């Protein structure tokens, strides 16, 4: 017998595709980066912290957000790169708070540096935002145990939608799986706690999929 609470809707697996859109804002130096960051749309802030997960990336990237990468490789400011790299977007309740943190770090560095740091003319920081298209896969999961088999088959777009995009959709910044398991009663609190400890910011989508799958396998079928 399936161990599902009655009246709980099945989990609908969705998928998504992102497309990048230029904002036209380009920073040549640290001051411009700070000034644009103050006003740029929050979608652009989101894109430069999280969008990299769906862009070309390797298992061990040097830095996890575009601001830190640009500081290191274009401004050649290691100190700033390290300070920016440590920002964990998960820690902020809203993108606006995340933006404030970013601007504060940039402000602090401008204050410390006697001369503004410049990048080469063909190496500007280009502010980009994205549009997301979300679609149904028509696959559903009714029993949490079935996730053990379903998860490895989910596309990286699905993983992004349910585990990354969900963080800005759901109250308390939690992923869709934890929301759904939470509706099933207290039975899955252990799994939910383990899933809460997964830090998606420091994983590729592939790694995230594997890590979640391992937790479910251990907790639900072990």
């Amino acid at each position, binding site marked *: 017998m399936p161990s599902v609470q009655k009246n709980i809707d099945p989990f609908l697996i969705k*998928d998504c*595709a*992102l*497309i*990048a*859109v*230029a904002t*036209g804002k*380009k920073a040549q130096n640290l001051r411009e980066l700070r000034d644009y960051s103050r006003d740029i749309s929050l*979608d652009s802030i989101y894109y430069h912290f999280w969008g990299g997960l769906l*862009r*070309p990336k*390797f298992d061990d990237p040097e830095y996890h957000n575009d601001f830190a990468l640009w500081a290191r490789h274009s401004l050649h400011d290691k100190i700033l790169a390290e300070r920016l790299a440590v920002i964990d977007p998960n820690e902020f309740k809203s993108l606006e708070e995340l933006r404030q943190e970013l601007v504060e770090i940039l402000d602090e560095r401008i204050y410390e540096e006697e001369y503004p740091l410049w990048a080469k003319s*063909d190496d*500007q920081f*280009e502010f*980009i*935002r*994205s*549009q*997301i*298209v*979300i*679609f*149904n*896969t028509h696959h559903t999961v009714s029993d949490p145990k079935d996730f053990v088999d379903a998860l490895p088959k989910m*596309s990286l*777009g699905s993983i992004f939608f349910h585990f990354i995009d969900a963080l800005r959709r759901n109250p308390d910044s939690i992923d869709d799986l934890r929301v759904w398991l939470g509706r099933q009663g207290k039975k899955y609190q252990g799994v939910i706690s383990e899933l809460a400890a997964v830090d998606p910011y420091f994983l590729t989508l592939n790694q995230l999929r594997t890590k979640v799958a391992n937790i479910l396998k251990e907790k639900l079928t072990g």
Partner: protein
Amino acid sequence: MKPILEKYAQHAGEDVVEHLRQLASSLKGLKVVHVNSTRVGGGVAEILHKMVPLMQELGLETSWEVINGDTPFYQCTKSFHNALQGDRINIPDKLLKEYEQTNQKTSEILRDKLQNADVAIIHDPQPAALIKHFPERKGKWVWRCHIDLSRPYRAVWKYLRKFVTDYDASIFSLSTFAQQLPHPIYLIPPSIDPLHDKNIDLPKGEVEEVYGRFNIDPHRPMILQVSRYDRFKDPIGVIQAYKISKKYFPGLQLVLAGGGATDDPEGEAVLNEVRAEAAGDDDVKILLLPGDAHRTINALQRASHIILQKSVKEGFGLTVTEAMWKHRPVIGGDTGGIRVQVINYHTGFLVNTPEGAAFRIRYLLNHEERMREMGAKAKEFVRENFLITRHLREYLTLIYALKHNTKDRIELTS
């Protein structure tokens, strides 16, 4: 699954093709028209030859039309092309008039088709002025710019801009290449076709055949640069890097493979400089290959240990993508689209000088295992990011975005 998608699934993965099918499922029956200036030759035609049947197979009613003109039209559009990349060319009014008339005539020929298209994708400047003749157009029009517009000659861009501003959106290959426009600017990098002769797997014998044909010793290391003889590709810098490396690897061989470029006086001058720089060294092979020598270049890439693209200025650099697809690490110039493909210690190395290139050649030749790892990563990197299937996915996503008036989040309900 129908045959063509099936073939791509073998290279890109079943999941990628399934993703495309799901994404396209709500776009079935949509009328999409591509317009460019030629069906033969050039990267745009090459991509459309595959993109159009793929879109058709996914259920979109896709067609491909071409703008045809007389010699003055092509003189004008060639000048556009050069001016948009920075050459200060003043185009006579007579030629501009010819450009506008050719667009006007083509608009009559294509009236029904373009008037009723749900999405019209107009490639590059040649057909850009068509939009002026469709004030009552039904669908969304997108201008797809394949050119690096980062530093255009202003007078020419100002002229073309008045057509481009009427579009609902435009597409550039990289953010760096884009100009400010009063509509959304989408960023879609180009792609390679794994089924093209340039990129298909070759029989071992065909790869080995190039050793004999070009007098290359298969038992000694070989490095290669494929590009036309152009100063921006820095072939002299490549030879200098080779010379430095040869002190440490006396058996090293260098192959420079480029086109003849008989109508390009500067190309001829660069070629002479290249020959002079390499004079007296039999281990440097300077090849002049015809434009359709795709399989030969494919074989040379597969026969080489390392591939260089030491450009000092570059557009996207699809030769880098093609090299990476053959499991080869690439030493590339730190410029343009090479930067998004060559990732230090992952898919190759970015360099700024012949010395930098020589240092990385030495590093890789001393670390064969690392070279193999990087080559394998390069191949996967291309598979995930620069195949035509990704290009198609982004076109489909763009079509949704246009249909939904460019909202940031589009949730499909079906």
